[in-house]
């Protein structure tokens, strides 16, 4: 049997006594597009940092392609939530993408023609060719996302992690980035794990959802997970799932404390 691309098994994380992740387990298979859904502060970034081995969990382990990851060179690509790129630094989009190829390499040596062509192809793939020579810091949020995705993908990873790539984008850019990610991921046969606090934009492309709340996770297809029984158990109190016009709303019952229902501020249904 082929090992899953990513295996998260019983991961516990706490910060100074406060439990952030509590026995989180799930798997991602080759080429799957997975949404890591949860509201702000439920530990999505922490989970991604554990997967990247930037944070050591108190218990549990993470395997990438059946092995524990060391370094995160080839098999993982990562797009962090906030990269503040200074407009005063003359780093062009193409420079940043090229660094995705060889930033770990010590030593001299110019890039080969094949490498430069790969950079061009990658920029083309994410529709960034038109601003390839602009300073990255002067680009819009959506444009920077494209460049960072190209930077993460150029080393040919099996798994691409993205931390809230849709936050702070206007609705049109959200749709563009989601479509682009879906296309690029299936073209390159890369599995995607994307964190978001809003699942609706991802519904058309998600193969799998990992729903995170109060430190616990439920995973499966959207139909398996986004159901009142499953989510109520996860939240520890009753929630309803409304499907309207192809959108999903998770709604807490009146009076229930639901501090972290994603998608929207707590809604009271009367």
């Amino acid at each position, binding site marked *: 049997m082929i090992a899953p691309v990513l295996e998260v098994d019983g991961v516990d994380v706490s910060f100074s006594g406060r439990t952030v992740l509590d026995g989180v387990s799930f798997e991602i298979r080759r080429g799957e597009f997975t949404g890591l859904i949860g509201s702000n502060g439920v530990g999505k970034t922490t989970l991604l940092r554990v997967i990247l081995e*930037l944070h050591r969990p108190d218990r549990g382990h993470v395997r990438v392609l059946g092995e524990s990851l060391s370094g995160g060179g080839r098999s993982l690509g990562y797009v962090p939530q906030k*990269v503040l790129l200074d407009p005063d630094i003359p780093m062009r989009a193409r420079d940043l993408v090229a660094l995705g190829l060889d930033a770990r390499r010590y*030593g001299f040596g110019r890039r080969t023609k094949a490498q430069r062509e790969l950079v061009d192809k990658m920029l083309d793939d994410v529709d960034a060719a038109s601003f390839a020579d602009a300073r990255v810091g002067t680009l819009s949020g959506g444009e920077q996302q494209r460049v960072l995705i190209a930077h993460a993908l150029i080393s040919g990873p099996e798994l691409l992690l993205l931390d809230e790539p849709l936050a702070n984008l206007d609705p049109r850019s959200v749709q563009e980035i989601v479509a682009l990610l879906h296309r690029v991921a299936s073209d390159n046969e890369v599995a995607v794990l994307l964190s978001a606090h809003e699942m609706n934009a991802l519904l058309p492309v998600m193969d799998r959802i990992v729903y995170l709340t109060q430190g616990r996770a439920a995973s499966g297809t959207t139909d398996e997970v986004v159901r009142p029984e499953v989510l109520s158990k996860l939240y520890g109190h009753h929630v309803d799932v409304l499907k309207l016009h192809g959108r999903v709303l998770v709604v807490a019952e009146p009076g229930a404390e639901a501090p972290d229902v994603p998608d929207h501020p707590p809604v009271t249904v009367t």
Partner: protein
Amino acid sequence: MHFLFEPGFFSSGPVRTAAVIGGLTAIVSAVVGTFTVVRSQSFAGHALTDVATTGGSGAFLLGLSPLTGFIAGGVIGGGAMEMIGVERARSRDVATGIVLGAATGLSALFLYLDATRSASTGATQQILFGSIFTIDSSTVPTIVVLSAATLLVLGVIHRPLLLSSVSAELAAARGISLRVVGLLFMLALAVAVGLSSISIGSILSTALLIGPAATALRVTRSLRAAMVAACLLGVSTTWLGILLAYDSVSWDPSSQGLPVSFFIVAIVFLLYLASGLSFVRGLSGRRGGGRPALGAVPAKDKDASPLGAAV
């Protein structure tokens, strides 16, 4: 040409030594300075100058060469700052401030002792403001080796250093050791500060480190171009400063000439101001298309060079 190059300029031994040392210093400072600006570590660079002052004044007290003191002070201080400060910008800032304060206090003591024991104020002047014309030519080989080693180390780590400078998070996610890269860079920074301390003085060395690099970053489109431009700016500024200081003896025959450091720092400052002018910035084409902006630099550079000034 007589009005520009005073008689004896090219045949003077001290001038030649100064030109070689100044040129090397400018190149190392420009390359290190470009990374320093990109990494937003100008403050660390400045703090290192204070630590270098401590080293230099301490060396003077012990009868060692100032260069030994500047470099030793910088390496120890830089290492301390990097070890205390973790990767977070704030604690790095605080660590820098703490080391800076302690070092400056020691400098006050050492400079006081230097002045009282040698019964002259020469030491203070030499350490703080440099004395490029009095450097013994026997130190040239040491300076060549230090410069080459620093450039070599930076060359070897340039890709990991660059990504970690642009985004520590992206670098860490790729498995780059921020600590190793940061420490090696801090050592390079310490050497650069040490070299410019003997040329233009410890407290002025920040000017040569940051000035040409910051100017070049404003008017270029890629880091490679910025580094080349910073080297050209730094070297021509330093040489022009040496020339003007040499000539300044004849402006006022009763004086011994004005300090080189003043001229270098003044030119660095003026160039930085000029690079802020909108028409110069426009040449750099902040967004795609257009020709590479490096073309803007040689033109300006020519004006700053001795030959350009003679026309």
